[in-house]
């Protein structure tokens, strides 16, 4: 998957640029990918393929975030952080749901590359998704670092 994503680089745009793009920019990116090739496939075909695989990736990262938060929660004795790690279960789930809707939006857009009227901007879906994931990772990181510092101080 990452090899395929590397193929997008020469176009000057990555997949997250499309995720975060408003309508006009999104259309520009898709036009560029439609006319750019990696081997015998257009970058648009590669992106469509990656987006389908992304559904599996969503399940993996959401599960991983929940498992990691649960693992850390069993070590976090400060109640506010303990509750925050529990909140991560919900944040990971909601981020995954937003990511799924974002993927459906992108798959739709791949079939409407020159059709500005039927383009569905995934900007806000992506912003919320990344925001929730960033918050969840921050909560985990704070708790994890706190426990490392406590262990070093013992």
């Amino acid at each position: 998957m990452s090899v395929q994503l590397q193929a997008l680089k020469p176009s000057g745009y990555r997949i997250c640029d499309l995720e975060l793009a408003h309508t006009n920019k999104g259309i520009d990116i898709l036009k560029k990918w439609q006319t750019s090739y990696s081997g015998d496939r257009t970058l648009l075909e590669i992106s469509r393929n990656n987006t389908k695989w992304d559904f599996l990736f969503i399940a993996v990262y959401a599960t991983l975030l929940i498992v990691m938060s649960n693992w850390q929660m069993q070590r976090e004795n400060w109640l506010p952080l303990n509750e925050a790690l529990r909140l991560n279960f919900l944040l990971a789930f909601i981020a995954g749901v937003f990511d799924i809707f974002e993927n459906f939006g992108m798959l739709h857009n791949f079939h409407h590359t020159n059709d500005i009227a039927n383009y569905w901007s995934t900007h806000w879906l992506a912003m919320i998704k990344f925001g929730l994931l960033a918050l969840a990772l921050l909560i985990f990181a704070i708790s994890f670092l706190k426990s490392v510092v406590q262990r070093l101080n013992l």
Partner: protein
Amino acid sequence: MTALSKDRLIKKLLANRISLNQFISLRKDVNEQDLSQIIQRIYDLNDEQVRKIAALEPLMAKVDGLKNSQRNSKFLNKIKNGFRQKPQNKVVLVEGDSWFNYPVLLSDVIDWIGMENNIAVYSLASGGDWLLNMLSAKKYVEQLSTMHPDVFIISAGGNDLVGNNRLAAMIDPSGKSEEFVKSAWAQGLMRVSNAPFEPHRFNNGLNYLSKDFFALLMFFQLQYYYIFRGILTSGKFSGIKIITQGYDYAQPSRTLGFGPKLWRWYKPFARMFLGHGTWLKTPLDIRGISDVTIQRDVIYAMIYLFNEMMIETGELFQKIAGYDCVFHVDSRGAIGDDGWTDELHPLPENFKKTGKAFIDCINGIPSPSRLVYKA
């Protein structure tokens, strides 16, 4: 005691007509077969049926097993590097129900205890487990012999009472029950207790408790007595400390608990998917007890007596063993009306309160009530 006289006493126990002296005699002589017989007769089931309904659901058993596996890996990591050489460090063996092993969502009592650096916890607890199961499976026996823990903690009885609408069998819907008055043993439990006591609620609740509840309460003491006698008189575990707990005044409810606090998202989730309403509210409704105040008072009386029974058990063993060995964590009144995740399980912060009382007891911090630690 002959088999015939024992059978006569068991019949009297089941009818809640056993005298105090008779109960004391039975308590000293009861064995595992007798206990199995008693529970079959309380619930009108045969042995196979009891084992079937006491068995954990496969998914629950798997989830509990996973959490125990994680805890026990943590235990093994902790006990390396001379952990037991330091006197302030304690090895704790745990057996119990969902207050000690709540699947994933909540940080339960044992989670909080396990976070203490000087306490290494080995867990056998399973949410949904019966005291009867724990006694007959004897997993705790094997682990006691293997690790000779400093402390053995047990939380059980809740699932024997609730689940599968069994609570309905403990109710006298007429509201005119005199079974408490007819039980010398139960009346003997009423002591000058340090627990806050609301006599109006207690007396109101008593009016709805059937003979089967008092038989079950005596049965609980017989089981705990059997387990603790085995441990404390074996000569193998000198100085071991045993700690019990008796839950708090649970809240019969079917409300989903939605609210503005996003971090409490798990409250409606647990209520929607994990059995809320089926343990207390539904069986009470089945017997025609739908008034909310009466429902709460019934549970109040049950939990009050359960805790007093556990405290009495601790005092018994102080006399038998000759030292303070069986302690009780009393959570009555600690959780409050709004402190519950669902009908039976506190919010994590309230599990932590009970956990703190356990930690103090484990670490030997004296309690003003000697054998009782208040959460």
